[in-house]
């Protein structure tokens, strides 16, 4: 009997367990702002503060039925000034009608000025918080981050989504197109590697704007020290591993050609030369296809193929070499040679790491490109106007 009473009482307490402990984490969707992008900019007034801009996908009621016209923006930009991210977030949460939902943040955009000044102290929160995700894209804006976030875009109305879809599309070309917080941070924590982030800029005018990736920002430690152009970015991607489906334009004395690179694989080898310097060999295997062709008169069949593959090899090698020269001039180990060295030659690495900058500037890069050109596309020779129908 007593036992029964106890059981009944325990069961009676059970709903309280649920009701009282429960809902603390409960957020109805209509009490949330879905943050799709965060922009950090340098404050004009003092160095301590930074401008924080949150891009929020504007919730719009569908019960009205009619489609909203393009007049009003699809996003809300919320701004504040704060010393740190968390302070800014709290400030925004206090003063807004809804709570910020951060796990869906697509991109962190750093203003160029802020990036040049150093960002380590600014982004600690992005690693520590449970709401922020490591897979968030990190980018540097050409100019102000806020401008990118608030741009009225023609395609995807929310620039955060625009960027994330654009990068997703690019990552089909190569895995190395992923410039996410995780990669950025792991490079930042590394002793020698340079973190990189794509540079994003706004193109177009008024409400017909678009976004464009304009090269890569190169960081040394936590400061942006320079940038690669869009072309250099592509050849940098080539040298980092495997690439699918991209193209390269080559000029030759006999004509010009655009090649589709079907598949490109780069393997790296590292040797320590007798004089103590490093030699890095890139073995590039590429399957290319002729995309467009003009000129090259008088060349036929095998001869043409041989010439063209030579042309492709040369231009791939040239471009990769140029990019490397740029990196050396910046003295930024964007190729993660230090990491490779550490893995392959740990003993030598111990000696080298103290003056890695010195070692890096003396690295000799040997690029060996092998191009296979199995098909010429649907036609063999370049189109020649006015000659085709003579025989009829």
């Amino acid at each position, binding site marked *: 009997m007593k036992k029964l009473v106890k059981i009944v009482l325990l069961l009676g307490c059970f709903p309280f367990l649920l009701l009282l402990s429960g*809902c603390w984490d409960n957020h109805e969707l209509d009490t949330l702002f879905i943050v799709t992008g965060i922009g950090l900019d340098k404050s004009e007034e003092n160095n301590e503060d930074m401008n924080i801009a949150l891009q929020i996908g504007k919730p719009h009621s569908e019960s009205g039925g009619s489609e909203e016209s393009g007049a009003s923006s699809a996003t809300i930009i919320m701004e504040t000034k704060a010393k740190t991210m968390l302070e800014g977030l709290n400030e925004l949460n206090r003063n807004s009608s809804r709570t910020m939902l951060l796990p869906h943040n697509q991109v962190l955009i750093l203003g160029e000025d802020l990036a040049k000044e150093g960002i380590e102290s600014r982004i600690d929160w992005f690693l520590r918080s449970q709401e922020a995700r490591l897979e968030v894209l990190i980018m540097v804006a050409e100019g102000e981050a806020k401008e990118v976030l608030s741009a009225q875009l023609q395609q995807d109305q929310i620039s955060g989504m625009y960027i994330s879809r654009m990068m997703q599309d690019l990552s089909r070309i190569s895995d190395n197109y992923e410039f996410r917080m995780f990669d950025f941070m792991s490079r930042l924590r590394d002793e020698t590697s340079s973190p990189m982030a794509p540079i994003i800029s706004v193109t177009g005018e008024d409400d017909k704007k678009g976004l464009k990736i304009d090269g890569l920002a190169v960081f040394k430690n936590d400061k942006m020290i320079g940038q690669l152009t869009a072309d250099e970015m592509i050849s940098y991607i080539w040298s980092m591993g495997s690439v699918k489906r991209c193209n390269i334009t080559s000029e030759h004395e006999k004509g010009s050609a655009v090649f589709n690179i079907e598949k490109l694989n780069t393997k790296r080898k590292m040797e320590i030369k007798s004089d103590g310097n490093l030699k890095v060999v890139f073995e590039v295997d590429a399957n290319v296809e002729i995309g467009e062709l003009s000129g090259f008169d008088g060349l036929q069949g095998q001869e043409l193929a041989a010439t063209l593959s030579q042309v492709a090899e040369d231009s791939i090698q040239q471009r990769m070499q140029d990019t490397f020269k740029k990196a050396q001039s910046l003295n930024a180990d964007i190729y993660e040679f230090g990491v490779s060295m550490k893995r392959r030659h740990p003993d030598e690495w111990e000696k080298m790491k103290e003056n890695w900058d010195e070692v890096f500037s003396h690295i000799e890069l040997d690029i060996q490109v092998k191009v296979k050109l199995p098909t010429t596309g649907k036609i063999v020779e370049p189109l020649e106007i006015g000659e085709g129908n003579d025989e009829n």
Partner: protein
Amino acid sequence: MIFKFISRKIKFLLHAAKQKESDVEKEEPEKKEITKDSVKKQLSSNVSNLKKRLSNSSDLKIHYFRTGKDGCYTGALAFIDGLVSNTLITESILRPLTVWEAQSEQEPDEEKLMDGVIEQALCSGEIEKILELPQAVAGCLSGDTVLFMEGCASALVISTKGWDKRSVSEPQSETVVRGPREGFTENLRTNTSLIRRKIKSGKLHVENMKIGRKTQTDICLMYLEDVVSSDVIRTVKSRMKQLDVDAILESGYIEEYIEDAPLSPFPTVGYTEKPDVAAGKILEGRIAIIVDGTPFVLTAPMLFVESFQTTEDYYTRTIYASLMRVTRFIGYLITIFAPGIYISLSDFHQEIIPTTLLFTIANAREGTPFPVFVETLIMVFAFEIIREAGIRLPRPVGQAISIVGALVMGDAAVSAGLVGAPVVIVVAITAVSAFLVPSQSDSVSMLRVAMMALASFTGWYGLAMGSLAILLYLGSLTSFGVPYFDGFSWNHNLQDSLVRMPLWTMVKRPKYIAEGNITRIGKIDPPLRPHKKEEGEDEDL
């Protein structure tokens, strides 16, 4: 302090409940109204006694007649109009009696006279000689005709049953695309014959009993003697024998009285309207309980797996049947968990919804006045209302209901901004999935709401706890001593659980039910290989 108060309150309540229980016990069961009363020699006293016992009902017909040479004997027939076949009475009782000339012309010797009537006059296969009047009453009530003779202290009960009954037709509740279309009727004998026609085995045991003080309902147990588990049959019989109730109007009464867990949301006694299903269950070692007056035949024990098995599984091709069975399982999970999952996702775990989908849901949620839980509850409740209304209403009105339901509840509620469109979708898929597993549909609608409540309090955590609780509970249930979850356990044959394996793999009957003659397939080559030669088949299957 409060704790003490509550505990005292509960003690009081429990005490009160106990008191009530004992009150019920004290109440004497209704005294048997029928006291012993033998058949008298006087015809008139017998007739008037019978009339009194049947409370002078107007449908009791008494027919006096004379028989023997020159009509030297008087007698009377008593029967209840409507329960008897008039042609039978005329042909097999009255006509022979009027032409019968008693051999001896002496004073009627009671014994000889009755025997003479049985042996020489009547043309009926089922005649019983009785000495007690109550037997005559019972006979009348079950459609027999009672024959009294003047000067005889005994009576005859002659079988003349013949009342209107529905013919065998396609069942409404279980329709099949492929498979027999006959269904049970309200007539007990028809039903037993339908099963007998499927299983022509001498081992098929049929046992009759009458339950119900007032209704005297005929109930019939059918099982295969060499297959049924002795424990189960003992439990079923003892529970049935203990029944001392007023009325059994439908097999549902029996079900509730003999179930292991009558308060459980899960059914532990199965029912079917189709003879082939009943026969299949009997062949697996189950017991069929057939109740007169209802086409729904109970089968026991019932296990959880059975909810997912349909007859058509065994009539269609194995791969398709397996696919359908997996679909049913998925549907079952959807119908319990889908609203809960939706609530927990949109209230707690927004981060795991893909961003684009989140925007869609968020946009739909915008401007709706209630929390998701309330919103979902409204829609689930509305669905239950529409369903209940659709079942109860006469068919022509049912259509109106479905239009109103679809338009008002679905479209209008959304466009008025009362509920979000995703909720309607979730509730719709939930509702439709529930019909995949009809025998569990009652349990499902309760569990669904429980899961929704848990999800709205604690999200995934609550769902996990809830599903754990359901599993534990299912594991603890039994049906006539057989664990409810048997059929999914590894140490039993699993050919017929999550998927339906080819028939030739099901060599044994389900071990957890059947006992004794376990093998149901003789040595055969699986159809995948060509037959080699036929040898030693049939070891008494």
